């Protein structure tokens, strides 16, 4: 590696503009004649829309127009789609109700849009929105899974009887039954995976501009995948043909999954820009973000694990109800199925697994992928179960895990995944050493003498990232392929632009992707620019989510770089009158190995573009593209150990130590990886002890602001002790696995295992607030 190559902790190129307030986000963009949209939203969790009277609103100062759901229907704009077809175990297709961008007839969650006001200023739009009179007929609502599946529950969509979207299964039910019949011990429990609000720092926003002369739309939007947005807006919503729609995702302030999806507001802004013949901007406020950004998690599960007399796992049986909210968001159907149940084998050799997942409609905000997407739910279930088993079987939790670790690779689990490589024992060893596992009993005793309840908990997670082979996901119902694209443009002066289909909204791609190029060519990263997020500039790509941009996005760059280097070597060999096979690239120069002859990259680039002296038959130019389709998922894995103290008087948790040992394969920029792990851990800890989206009995979101939704702050979390073990991923040329979600996947179980260890009561749900922990301390309930 060079000082800026692979493996170097290079300072992030993009941070200068971010930390000096010079980032350019959607709301920073202003265009001539811009109007502002404000949505009229349902105050009810479930109601019939009997009428909308906008007469008074239309007469208010500055109002350009008031548009309603019926007009969208009349304009034949498509309903929102769910892009992953999941079938029930009886073979039937999932039962989806229609989701119009603005509700013409029925609202099904608080915050659902029914109309939009377009006005000259933001405040005028808000003022007029208050004057739009919507006549609602309230209906009984069911925001919770248990309410929605109860006999006689309110019916949300006629298409989904009993509010069941699907009843899906994976694995071999008979084999599991057989395993349980042979079990020496069975461990079972029920658990809740709490609903979370993603809370990206930048709320969603859209600025849509229609150019009448060219019949062309431009949409600036907060998207993790602008090409997919364009595809969906064109092919399914019929707002504009693809070649007449440019989608730009400029600087985007965080996503965590919530900006993958195509939401009603962005689509309405685009449609409205043609309707009112003026550019339309919508910027969500924090309250709208709480109410309308797709939420995450929200499972209720029952799990049972069978062990033989030697404490080897024989089988696992899981039944999960997943709350989808009121509508099926873009990738929602895949999250509790192919991103969840396929990871239920964890790091363990489990001969038989069967999981049933029942997807449920409720009167709540739609739920979709949120950092980890299904994998945190799987890890939490499995690692809580392993800890519970260790306690019930009275064995050391580390030993129980170790005894059941998968140790030979590749390993085919009973739930689709084929793990390529890993060393689970190595990461557990390293974590136990870093956490001084052996010294814990003494520390616990000392804490007890000081009136504190000390606990330790571990979590050994695995995740499937870099999704994934397009053919494989296609066979599982995905509506898209999950490859990535790249184009490498060497400019005539030797500077380089990388056009990537990945999108950076906090990940630091402008640095890490440049490091790959710097590494290969031996040039400084300042000579490399990363271009992303604009469908007019960049070839079709799939965007960033699921920790895929290193494994898939960078692999595409790698492939394109190989092509560029191959051509450049041919040119260099020609100019140096040497054999192509003798050319090596070092420090930005093409050298003839074993000689002092060399030519610098800019000279090769210039030669490519002047084309005065190229090998016979060679095309001018130095620009190559590649599409990379992975051969498998990647499988980051690791061990987390958390040590904490519970204050018996208040139930408050204080962290003593948090050790995270991850195997991400090769690290491109260890500093950025560390930052990603920190962020993930904080979100995992947030889920464990702080965060929850809570609805009241009438379906109102109680936690619709930061006054009630507890986001982790710096003093809520410990300093983390991070390290890595490494097995290189054999499935991609860089050996990388992905690091974006690990922390959020592995942390929650470690924390709850530690708290339940501290208080000596295994029954505790997330978030383990001081109130809940205090009540769970034996004697307090």
């Amino acid at each position, binding site marked *: 590696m060079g000082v800026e190559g692979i493996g170097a902790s290079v300072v992030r190129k993009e941070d200068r503009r971010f930390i000096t307030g010079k980032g350019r986000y959607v709301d920073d963009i202003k265009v001539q004649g811009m109007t502002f949209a404000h949505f009229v939203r349902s105050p009810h969790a479930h109601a019939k829309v009997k009428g909308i009277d906008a007469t008074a609103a239309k007469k208010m100062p500055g109002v350009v127009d008031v548009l309603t759901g019926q007009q969208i229907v009349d304009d034949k704009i498509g309903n929102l789609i769910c892009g992953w077809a999941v079938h029930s175990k009886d073979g039937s297709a999932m039962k989806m109700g229609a989701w119009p961008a603005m509700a013409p007839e029925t609202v099904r969650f608080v915050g659902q849009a029914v109309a939009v006001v377009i006005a000259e200023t933001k*405040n005028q739009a*808000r*003022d007029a929105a*208050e004057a739009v009179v919507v006549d609602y007929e309230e209906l009984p609502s069911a925001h919770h899974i248990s309410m929605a599946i109860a006999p006689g529950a309110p019916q949300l969509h006629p298409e989904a009887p009993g509010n069941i979207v699907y009843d899906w299964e994976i694995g071999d039910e008979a084999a599991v039954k057989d395993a349980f019949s042979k079990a020496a011990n069975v461990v079972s429990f029920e658990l809740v995976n709490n609903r979370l609000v993603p809370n990206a720092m930048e709320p969603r926003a859209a600025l849509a501009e229609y150019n009448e002369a060219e019949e062309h739309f431009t949409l600036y939007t907060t998207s993790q995948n602008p090409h997919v947005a364009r595809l969906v807006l064109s092919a399914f919503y019929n707002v504009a043909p693809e070649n007449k729609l440019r989608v730009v995702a400029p600087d985007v302030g965080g996503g965590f999954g919530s900006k993958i999806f195509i939401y009603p507001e962005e689509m309405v802004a685009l449609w409205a820009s043609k309707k009112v013949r003026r550019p339309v901007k919508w910027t969500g406020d924090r*309250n709208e973000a709480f109410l309308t950004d797709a939420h995450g998690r929200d499972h209720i599960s029952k799990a049972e694990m069978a062990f033989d007399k030697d404490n080897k796992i024989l089988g696992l049986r899981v039944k999960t109800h997943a709350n989808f909210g009121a509508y099926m968001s873009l990738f929602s159907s895949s999250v509790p199925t192919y991103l969840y149940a396929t990871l239920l084998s964890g790091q363990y050799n489990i001969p038989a697994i069967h999981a049933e997942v029942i997807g449920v409609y409720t009167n709540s905000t739609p739920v979709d992928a949120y950092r980890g997407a299904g994998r945190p739910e799987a890890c939490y279930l499995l690692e809580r179960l392993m800890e519970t088993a260790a306690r019930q079987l009275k064995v050391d939790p580390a030993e129980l895990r170790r005894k059941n670790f998968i140790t030979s690779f590749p390993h085919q689990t009973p739930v689709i995944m084929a793990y390529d490589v890993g060393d689970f024992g190595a990461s557990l060893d390293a974590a136990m050493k870093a956490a001084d596992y052996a010294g814990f009993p003494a520390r616990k005793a000392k804490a007890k003498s000081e009136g504190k309840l000390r606990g330790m908990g571990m979590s050994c997670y695995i995740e499937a990232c870099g999704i994934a082979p397009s053919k494989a996901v296609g066979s599982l119902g995905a509506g898209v392929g999950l490859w990535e694209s790249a184009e490498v443009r060497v400019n005539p002066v030797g500077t380089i632009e990388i056009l990537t289909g990945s999108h950076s909204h906090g990940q630091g791609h402008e640095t890490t992707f440049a490091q790959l190029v710097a590494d290969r060519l031996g040039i400084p990263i300042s000579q490399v620019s990363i271009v992303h997020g604009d469908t007019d500039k960049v070839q079709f790509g799939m965007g960033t989510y699921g920790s895929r941009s290193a494994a898939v996005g960078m692999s595409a760059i790698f492939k394109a770089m190989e092509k560029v280097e191959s051509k450049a070597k041919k040119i260099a060999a020609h100019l140096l009158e040497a054999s192509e096979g003798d050319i090596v690239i070092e420090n930005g120069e093409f050298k003839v190995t074993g000689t002092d002859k060399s030519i610098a990259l800019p000279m090769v680039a210039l030669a490519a573009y002047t084309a005065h002296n190229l090998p016979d038959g060679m095309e001018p130019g130095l620009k190559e593209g590649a599409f990379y389709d992975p051969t498998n998922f990647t499988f980051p894995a690791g061990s987390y150990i958390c040590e904490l103290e519970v204050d018996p*008087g*208040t*139930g*408050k948790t204080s962290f003593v130590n948090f050790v995270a040992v991850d195997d991400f394969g090769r690290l491109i920029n260890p500093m950025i990886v560390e930052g990603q792990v920190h962020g993930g851990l904080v979100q995992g800890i947030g889920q464990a*002890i*702080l965060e*929850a989206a*809570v609805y009241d009995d009438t379906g109102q979101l*109680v*936690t619709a602001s*930061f*006054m*009630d*939704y*507890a*986001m982790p*702050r710096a003093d*809520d979390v410990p300093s983390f002790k991070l390290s890595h073990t490494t097995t290189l991923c054999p499935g991609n040329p860089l050996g990388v696995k992905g690091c974006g979600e690990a922390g959020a996947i592995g942390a929650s179980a470690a924390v709850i295992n530690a708290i339940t260890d501290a208080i000596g009561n295994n029954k505790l749900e997330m978030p383990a*607030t*001081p*109130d809940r922990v*205090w*009540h769970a301390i034996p004697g*307090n309930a």
Partner: protein
Amino acid sequence: MYSTTYHRPSTVEEAVALFAKGSDAKYLAGGHTLLPVMKQRLTAPSDVIDIARIPALIGIEASADTLTIKAATTYVDIVNSADVKRTIPAIAHLTSVVGDPAVRARGTIGGSVATNDPSADYPAAVLALNATIKTNKRSIAAEDFFKGLFATALDENEIITAISFPIPAKAGYSKMRNPASRFALTGVFVVQTKSGEIRVAATGASQNGVMRVPAIEAALKANWSASALDGVKISDEGLMADIHGSSDYRANLIKVMAQRAVTAAG
């Protein structure tokens, strides 16, 4: 936010006159309660009169028996005041755990006390220390000032000018923070006056706002120590319950926070 007219008077008299002129005027003294509500369009004052910058309302004075904090003194100035730290360090501590640095830079003691949020910290100190609330019209004893949730003895156009705290023999404050808002999930302020009276006030607990806690006072009068409260049982009747804390949890917190406040008071 609806449109409003912002005023920045330089004297109390000017502020009072501006208030009288407005059709639905509101005083602003930091704004941590008023501005969020205005942003959510839940209130629409015609005039917002910013009294936080009136020089006569800013400052801290200490005599042998009394600490007087003028109403528009910001939290950060109270935290950093040598007079406060010397005379009633418990007030400096209480102030240091209000909100976060941004809140403490803007918030004022008068604004907090006039708002009487049931989970605010200062009411506990004011009531337990038996402070006197001085206004542009009169002096009001703490016992007579707090009238339930967000309600006080203040007339509509009455401005707190200062709060005078008798300097106690001992005082301590302990607070369990609401994990989201950082208001007091329950906070308890304990006082032993120079004449030996024990006064204990809890905030964040009662459905009626700040309250005295006679059971704790009685136990501490018999024996000023944390362990004296071990056997005290606080009823959860009339206590708040929300997603962050049930009423029985808050009842427990009253006792536990009181114990810690006594320990802190020494």
